[in-house]
């Protein structure tokens, strides 16, 4: 039986209730988009496996769970969350914590970092930069293929906001720690907006943690505008637990001569689906989409990428890798669209996966639509086991079989990690991945709240 009508009814009730609830506190600028988004959601519904982009991903188990409500921020929760410092050794970052998709209130709502970059809550940004938010909010999303995107627009009322004005450069990475913590099973919707103006440079690290064992469903939409000659890099480290489902939809819009890079490192989570859309709207732009996941038990990790070459002389790279054990499953759907105008395009895609058990399963599907003639495009996908010859080579030097397997898996994973530009962060992620491969919980050493 189709589980979806009941879930849609539940979300509709939530939407109706929001009129008298959080919408009252939410800025008008965000509220203005809700009606249209809600009707888009009703029109598109919840994606099922007939939707090409969800062909191998079944949301039922996580969406049909009865979440007890929608989280509303309470001040004292934040005091607890503030204790959380996710320090990365030798890594000098500027750090901010979101709890269940919300920023703490008060002065820290929106602050300016040295160098002139603004970081903080989207709600606060609406007050301080109304024209700018209005110009970019809800402009880059795709509202035609996936009902979960407009659902976020209909319901979300806070999230991360970053504004890098013209030629601003912040040398340290900005670290955002997304915490999930609740006594109830909750549904979280955060909405993020990042604007990187001409010539500016921004480096973002987003860490997702679940601090309590409750069931969490997170539906995140992030819009990124990268203006001419600007540079934007994001690394996400997803480290939740098996009761949590994390769905991200990231829309990166790039103007001419710009550079963007997205790297999703998925260490833990019951169901994780990262959809990343890169629109190359201006000439000579470059974009990279990376992903690495390690899955075991019954976890499912899906990556959806769409690179839209809509201007000439742009370059794109996709490199996605997965290691799957036990009954884990994964999916990769990578689309490259080269529009007629996009002459001189270089587009590269690679997806490699290792299955460690007989039961693990990986589905990979490239989709290329090319309408220009001067195009260099390559793609390749593999699903296989560890290389027996390499394994023997390591063992023949005295390295035991288990360690040799770990080294090979790590080497396989490092291929993605090495694209992280900051060395200290790269080393940290190497360590987390190694711990994960060794079966230890990858917990940050200096974490004040111990993850279960």
């Amino acid at each position, binding site marked *: 039986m189709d589980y979806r009508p009941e879930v849609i009814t539940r979300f509709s009730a939530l939407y109706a209730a929001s009129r008298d609830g959080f919408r009252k506190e939410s800025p008008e600028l965000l509220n203005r988009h809700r009606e249209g988004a809600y009707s888009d959601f009703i029109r598109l519904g919840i994606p099922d496996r007939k939707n090409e982009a969800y062909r191998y991903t079944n949301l039922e188990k996580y969406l049909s769970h009865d979440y007890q409500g929608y989280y509303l921020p309470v001040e004292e929760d934040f005091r607890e969350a503030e204790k959380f410092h996710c320090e990365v050794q030798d890594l000098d970052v500027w750090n901010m914590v979101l709890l269940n998709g919300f920023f703490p209130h008060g002065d820290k709502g929106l602050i300016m970092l040295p160098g002139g970059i603004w970081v903080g809550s989207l709600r606060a940004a609406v007050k301080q930069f109304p024209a700018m938010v209005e110009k970019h909010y809800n402009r880059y999303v795709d509202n035609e293929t996936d009902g979960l995107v407009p659902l976020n627009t209909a319901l979300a009322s806070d999230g991360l906001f970053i504004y890098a004005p013209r030629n601003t450069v912040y040398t340290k990475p900005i670290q955002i720690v997304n915490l999930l913590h609740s006594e109830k099973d909750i549904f979280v919707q955060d909405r993020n907006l990042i604007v990187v103006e001409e010539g500016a440079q921004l480096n973002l690290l987003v860490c997702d943690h679940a601090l309590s064992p409750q069931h969490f469903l997170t539906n995140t939409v992030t819009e990124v505008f990268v203006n001419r000659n600007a540079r934007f890099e994001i690394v996400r480290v997803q480290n939740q637990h098996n009761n949590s489902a994390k769905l991200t939809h990231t829309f990166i819009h790039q103007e001419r001569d710009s550079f963007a890079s997205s790297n999703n490192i998925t260490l833990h989570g019951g169901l994780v689906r990262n959809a990343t859309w890169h629109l190359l709207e201006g000439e000579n732009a470059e974009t990279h989409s990376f992903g690495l996941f390690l899955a075991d038990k019954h976890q499912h990790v899906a990556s959806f990428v769409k690179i839209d070459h809509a201007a000439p002389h742009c370059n794109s790279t996709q490199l996605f890798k997965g290691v799957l054990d036990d009954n884990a499953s994964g999916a990769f759907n990578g689309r490259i669209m080269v529009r007629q105008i996009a002459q001189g395009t270089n587009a590269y895609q690679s997806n490699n996966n290792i299955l460690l058990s007989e039961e693990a399963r990986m589905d990979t599907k490239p989709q290329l639509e090319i309408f220009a003639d001067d195009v260099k495009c390559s793609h390749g996908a593999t699903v296989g086991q560890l290389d027996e010859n*390499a394994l*023997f080579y390591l063992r023949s*030097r005295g*390295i035991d079989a288990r360690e040799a397997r770990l080294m090979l898996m790590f080497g396989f994973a490092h291929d993605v990690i090495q694209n992280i530009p900051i060395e200290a962060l790269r080393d940290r992620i190497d360590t987390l991945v190694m711990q994960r491969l060794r079966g230890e919980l990858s917990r940050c050493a200096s974490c004040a709240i111990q993850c279960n």
Partner: protein
Amino acid sequence: MKNDFLLQIKELKASIDNKEILKGLNLEVKPGEIHAIMGPNGSGKSTLASVLTGREIATVTHGTVTFEGRNLLEMSPEERAREGIFLSFQYPIEIPGVSMVNFMKTAINEQRKHRGQDPLSASEFLRQMREKKELVEIDSALTNRSVNEGFSGGEKKKNEIFQMAMLEPRLALLDETDSGLDIDALRIVANGVNKIRRPDTSVIVITHYQRLLDYIVPDHVHVLYDGRIVRSAGPELALELEERGYDWIRKEAEVSAESWTTGQK
């Protein structure tokens, strides 16, 4: 039980995919001895190296192999390595993403753990790396890369001998380490092997060419033909093979195989 032999192979038979490759091979190696094994392509030289190092592609169906008096065939590949067996591969494997440094550090420390020693300190490890790199004149750029990844044929062979220098084996099997090396590299690699050797280190050199044996002078030369050692003699045998090829060996071997089968009947 005291045994004079470091390695003793008796009536060894082994198959790959149910096809018998080694057909009753005997070989005895004493500590400090150098043995050369020559023989036509496909005669089973690399298969012997696989059996001795525990590679699963070959299945032993008959015979015994003892190393320092212990049953070698019962040991895992890693145990054999820690006990001091080293193979310089005919075709070294590329391992993307695994750095040479991490690889060597892990290998050395596993060996030390096996001997009840503490792991090497970082500085001591680096000192050894430097020293051994000089020994085989290997470029530092290579040891900063992933294992064998993108190395040329000759660089891969040098890298094998570099690893041998780091691990200081009791028994080194060099499977065509000379092929693919230019004249200078051959000299460097061969001299490297001589410098690495301690008086009790034994070496089995598998080669097609006399050249290498000018540097690494064998005590015994064996001809492996169709899965058996059909002739053993001193270093002069290598010269004779170089001159006359394998045809005469082949004829002799076929005659003796015939008489052997008729004798059985």
